[in-house]
């Protein structure tokens, strides 16, 4: 028991005691405590175990930079792994455990690993575990690694995203940030101040300082009042700036108050703010560095500033018999404050010569000060017992060993590191500053750093840039920790140097220094200072690794925000969605659209339903909702000319009232999309696109129009969602349509195949196209989107007696495969050319140019052995699996003996022909009709005959009827 609660100091609310559990035992704290301060107040020393050696660890810091006290809170779905005890607000009933220790943090059986530390230095795993094989060792290593446990249930809480913009964003509500905020507000610009803590004031909180003659507490309160009163000033507390990105974007994670009212079904746990600011001021402060000496990881070794924070903010005194070890003036503040609070300062060890110690006279009045002295090692295992100081010579090496000093706590200060992370996120450069022995932002840059974040320290005095004692023997290096969480020691750094991992990035990656969950907040600068010393270079020459967002670990759920579950992918619903539901459609997602796959009747299987629907189309009529098809109007005097340049076929020559099937090519001549182009009028075309490509086709047209041929008098409009489309298809289609009373003559003579008519239907405008994807007479009826459901019911009502059946996509696919019609994405891929599909008839030979034309004459396009569309008929009459390959037995040097010559792209058991029908892409397939080939799917082998595609009604009489 060493840490203790002071009777009066601190800002915790002593009227609100809180009970909590740590490692299964009950403790008490107060509202305003963190888990860390409460544990310290209760005298708990060991709050964690290190990642690799499982050494006992205590609290080093009081803020987000804490490397050692890694805890898991809660249980079940609400459990949270890997929190620092310093960021856990104490709430009633809090249940917390240390991670990475078993059975408990105080008696961890894996601590025996620490005995082996000499044999398992940094990067040892690269040198062993190779024989007989890594796979034998890896599972054990994995089990030992990792910190906390992930929850095994979905997160019951929610996260949201919020956006804002502001003239000035100030990050950090310490004194520097508050000053910046006041200045900004007084200049009249909109100002947002954010602070990761629940309260403003930063390190000044609770301290007995004064600012411009006012006690600091009152000064903070006045500043906040002014900010809150200003109409253009705001602040966000409990909000951490996790990253700065391009063009003034700040990502800020605001977390809710865990003591706030809980929700029944989960609650809003956090909010990711994305704030654009014209000007960003970083007042993120600085982080104190520890010193590196043997046993510096022992519980009881704490940053001097952390002890101050625990005292001023939480009223907790870190120890009773304290040694301070430092290389700067500021650290003395902690000694004075703790001494005032009743702790004994046994000694101050200062790396500097007496002349450099600014507070020497004052300090000497109160406690012994040993100049040019630093700890060589700390004695004690589970708790600091004593310090063994070493006298330094002028070079920083050990001159002599001093007598052991008994103590229970060692406060350390190796100087201060400005928080330059945010500045670096957006590429800000850094400069080594000898005065503070750290990197500082090079300004001006995209953001303005102020206060300690900019390297401005008023009270550090003259620093001696030494973080560890050079010892001749070096026995201490094995337990002198540079990175506490990842157990990287002085020996490890020296090993890396010896093995030529001398770049600062190599050092980091080889030893894992700075790669723990604290991202090296307390270790990076010490690491590179030691590296520089080893190499005989300056830290400026060695440089620093790049800081990466997020500044502080942030829940994955916060980044996903609302994009989880049903909101991950917004589903597009058809206008007649309700009608389909009423008819029992099985809805499925096809791309972004939710569409009827089939309409099963009682106890029907998918195949039965699909066959019934397909047969209805062949024998009577089917009704298919084709509303998701892309529809783009192309209008203007040059519309024909434009489409002539876009499409490989001739469009300008098409007569109004006619339509034709066309493929759209990329400049590489590969097929981008297919669909029907209709000429509604001289200057008005309707371009049809597949459901998945509507936006892509619209963008493609605009790309060429705006960028390549801006002189053309054409405009395009995507009307996909303006028109719903109901297709009736089958021998009775015309009869059913005629009953509906459209203003359009649908007779065979007046309305031939591949024509389009406009008129009215049900009292609203309509457009009907005669095109067919099923091989039967088909009418695609377009009607304003809102009337889709009405049209659907009217058609069903009037067609019911004639056998009109609603059909889903799967039946349509069945019918088109019987016909040998291609489906984009099945028969095409990223390399398919028109001729591969037998569509060279759609490519004009007369036109001088069109998009993709030149690519059609490249050597690859002219090869005779390209994969071509064929029909495939299995000899046993079955439907071959889609994705089965046509296997060749002709040897090929690269592809081996049994290589693929193509594959099955579509396949069904044809209800019309009562046998398997398949389409495929096969090398030189068109010249191989009649050949028997082997199909292979996994271990299954089938024989099939290559045929022309289109087994059903090859002459196409039925659809022209």
């Amino acid at each position, binding site marked *: 028991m060493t840490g203790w609660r002071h009777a009066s100091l601190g800002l915790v609310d002593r009227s609100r005691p809180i009970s909590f559990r740590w490692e299964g035992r009950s403790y008490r704290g107060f509202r305003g405590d963190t888990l860390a301060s409460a544990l310290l107040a209760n005298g708990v020393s060991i709050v964690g175990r290190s990642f690799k050696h499982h050494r006992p660890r205590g609290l080093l810091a009081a803020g987000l930079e804490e490397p050692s006290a890694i805890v898991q809170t809660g249980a079940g779905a609400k459990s949270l*792994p890997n929190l620092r005890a310093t960021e856990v607000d104490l709430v009633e009933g809090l249940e917390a455990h240390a991670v990475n220790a078993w059975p408990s943090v105080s008696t961890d059986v894996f601590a025996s690993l620490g005995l082996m530390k000499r*044999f398992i230095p940094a990067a040892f795993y690269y040198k062993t575990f190779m024989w007989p094989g890594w796979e034998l060792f890896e599972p054990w290593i994995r089990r030992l690694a990792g910190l906390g446990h992930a929850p095994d249930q979905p997160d019951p809480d929610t996260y949201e995203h919020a956006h804002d913009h502001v003239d000035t964003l100030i990050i950090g509500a310490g004194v520097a940030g508050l000053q910046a905020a006041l200045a900004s507000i007084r200049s009249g610009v909109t100002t947002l101040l954010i602070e990761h803590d629940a309260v403003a004031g930063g390190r000044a909180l609770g301290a007995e300082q004064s600012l411009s003659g006012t006690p600091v507490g009152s000064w903070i309160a006045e500043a906040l009042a002014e900010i809150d009163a200003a109409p253009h000033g705001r602040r966000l507390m409990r909000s951490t700036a996790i990253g700065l990105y391009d063009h003034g974007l700040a990502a800020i994670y605001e977390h809710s108050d865990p003591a706030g009212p809980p929700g029944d079904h989960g609650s809003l746990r956090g909010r990711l703010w994305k704030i654009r600011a014209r000007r960003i001021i970083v007042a993120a402060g600085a982080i104190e560095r520890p010193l590196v000496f043997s046993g510096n990881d022992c519980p009881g070794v704490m940053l001097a500033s952390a002890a101050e924070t625990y005292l001023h903010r939480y009223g907790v005194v870190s120890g009773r018999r304290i040694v301070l070890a430092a290389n700067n003036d500021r650290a003395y503040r902690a000694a004075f404050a703790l001494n005032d609070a009743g702790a004994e300062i046994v000694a101050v060890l200062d790396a500097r010569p007496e002349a450099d110690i600014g507070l020497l006279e004052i300090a000497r009045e109160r406690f012994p000060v040993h100049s040019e002295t630093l700890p060589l090692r700390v004695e004690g295992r589970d708790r600091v017992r004593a310090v063994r100081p070493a006298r330094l010579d002028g070079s920083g090496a050990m001159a002599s060993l001093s007598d052991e000093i008994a103590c229970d706590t060692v406060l350390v200060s190796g100087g201060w590191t400005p928080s330059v992370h945010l500045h670096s996120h957006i590429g800000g450069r850094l400069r080594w500053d000898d005065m503070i022995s750290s990197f500082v932002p090079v300004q001006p840059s995209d953001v303005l750093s102020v206060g300690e974040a900019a390297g401005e320290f008023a009270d550090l005095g003259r620093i001696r840039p030494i973080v560890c004692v050079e010892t001749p023997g070096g026995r201490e290096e094995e337990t002198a920790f540079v990175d506490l969480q990842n157990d990287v020691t002085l020996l490890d750094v020296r090993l890396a140097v010896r093995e030529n991992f001398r770049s600062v990035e190599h050092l980091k990656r080889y030893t894992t220094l700075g790669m723990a969950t604290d991202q090296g907040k307390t270790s990076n600068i010490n690491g590179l200072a030691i590296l520089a010393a080893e190499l005989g270079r300056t830290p400026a020459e060695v440089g620093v690794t790049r800081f990466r967002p997020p500044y502080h670990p942030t829940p994955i759920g916060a980044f996903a925000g609302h994009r989880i579950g049903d909101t991950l992918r917004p589903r597009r619903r058809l206008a007649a969605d309700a009608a389909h539901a009423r008819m029992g459609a099985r809805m499925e997602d096809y791309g972004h659209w939710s569409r009827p796959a089939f309409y099963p009747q009682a106890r029907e299987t998918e195949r039965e339903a699909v066959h019934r629907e397909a047969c209805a189309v062949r024998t009577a009529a089917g009704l298919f909702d084709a509303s998701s098809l892309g529809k783009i109007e192309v209008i203007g005097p040059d519309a024909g000319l434009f489409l002539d340049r876009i499409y490989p076929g001739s469009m300008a020559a098409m007569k109004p009232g006619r339509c034709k099937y066309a493929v759209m090519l990329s400049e590489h001549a590969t097929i981008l999309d297919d669909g029907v182009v209709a000429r509604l009028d001289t200057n008005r075309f309707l371009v049809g696109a597949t459901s998945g490509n509507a936006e892509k086709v619209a963008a493609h047209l605009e790309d060429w129009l705006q960028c390549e041929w801006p002189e053309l008098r054409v405009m395009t409009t995507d009307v996909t969602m303006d028109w719903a489309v109901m297709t009736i298809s089958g021998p009775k289609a015309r009869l059913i349509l005629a009953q509906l009373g459209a203003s359009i003559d649908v007779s065979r003579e007046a309305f031939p195949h591949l024509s389009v008519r406009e008129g009215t239907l049900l009292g609203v405008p309509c457009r009907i196209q005669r095109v067919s994807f099923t091989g039967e007479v088909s009418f695609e009826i377009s009607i304003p989107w809102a009337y889709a459901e009405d049209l659907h019911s009217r058609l069903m009502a009037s067609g019911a007696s004639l056998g009109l059946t609603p059909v889903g996509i799967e039946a349509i696919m069945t019918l088109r495969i019987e016909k040998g019609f291609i489906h984009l994405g099945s028969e095409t891929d990223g390399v398919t050319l028109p001729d591969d599909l037998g569509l060279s008839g759609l490519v004009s030979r007369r036109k001088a140019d069109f998009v993709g034309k030149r690519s059609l004459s490249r050597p690859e396009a002219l090869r005779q052995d390209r994969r071509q569309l064929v029909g495939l008929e299995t000899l046993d009459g079955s439907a071959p699996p889609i994705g089965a390959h046509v296997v060749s037995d002709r040897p090929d040097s690269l592809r081996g003996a049994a290589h693929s010559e193509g594959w099955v792209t579509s396949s069904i058991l044809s209800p019309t022909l009562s046998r398997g029908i398949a389409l495929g892409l096969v090398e030189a397939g068109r010249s191989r009709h009649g050949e028997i080939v082997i199909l292979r799917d996994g271990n299954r082998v089938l024989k099939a005959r290559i045929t022309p595609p289109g087994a059903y009604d090859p002459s196409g009489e039925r659809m022209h009827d």
Partner: protein
Amino acid sequence: MTAARPWRRYSGLSLLRAGFERQRGWPPAFIDATPQSSYDVVIVGGGGHGLATAYYLARHHGVRRICVLEKGWIGGGNTGRNTTVIRSNYFFPESAALYDLSLRLYEGLSAELNYNIMFSQRGVWMLGHSRHDEEILRRSANAMLLNGVDAEFYNDAETHRRIRGLHPNPSFPIRCGLLQPRGGVARHDAVAWAYARAASRLGVDIIQNCEVLGFEISDGRVRSVRTSRGDIRAPVVGLAAAGHSSNVAGLAGLSLPLTSYALQAFVSEPVKPVLDTVLITSATGVYLSQSDKGELVIGGGLDLFPSYAQRGSLPNMERSAAGVLELFPQFSRLRFLRQWAGICDVSHDSSPILSATEVEGLYVNCGWGTGGFKAIPAGGWLFSHLLATGRSEARARAFTLERFLTGAMIDEAGAAAIAH
């Protein structure tokens, strides 16, 4: 060239011995060489591909005087900035031959180089979410088997059974899974270091902090490389500069069919094992594994504008997070620890370029896009053959610059509709 370089075999025994010596006996893993005035082969780029090329040149092609020039520190480009996935589940035989060569070399690499690169063959899954995905994945599975690559195709129930913790009812329902059991992950930095150590031992000069400033070219032949550390004469120069290939080639007056994009990756804080395989999902383009250290390693798509900034952006991070939670909603409370980006040189078909150029003696190894790490051994193997003989090895023939003239693309993404 130089005297024998100090070397000590890595093994459990040597580690034990080193323990008693307080780790003092280890020699440098590789030597920082001083540039000589001439070499037989100069390789520009000290990433995985460059170092592997140097190693195989020295090991198999008897080339004696080789140097690798690295502008920064070895392995500092995409070799050290990826999601460490190794797989050969490709569709076209040309790609399969290339990437399976790589996988097979990876399988023996720790032993060959005496360096544990921790290649963990925990399997790589591609998840299918729609009828179309299922067709494409089955087509891919069969292609893989015909290509001599291991592939196992599973239905929805079996996929769920084999991947612990998958969300039972996601918005993108899982219809099937295609597993390549031999696929897995490795320790990315170690691959560069292992090749560097082995190459250095064979006498290869690895020169860090040496920037290439230009090339001396006369009569259509490369004569020497101008560097920040002096001119280096060489009859053969191989460029292996990944994301910066266009810029280095530009110094020789070459224009390459490449665009450089940032590819981001993310890691979470480490947790105890929760995922023992590698997942790639076509629905959101996310890929996911768990490192030996316990971090979830997450990758997504490219940032879709050209960039050399090597830094992440927010929209991609949000998409990747959503993609992960779609599969594993229980990871929502885990926290992202770090976000970073590598610069990928992407060709039109996302396939690599291993090719001679119009400058005689100057060769390029580039265009690996987002998949360069898994290809390191094969890239080195095939590029070393090209540099040593001036001819493409059979498995590299489809990957020359010629294809951009003829149009013979090897478009895996286009063919298989799987993100590559």
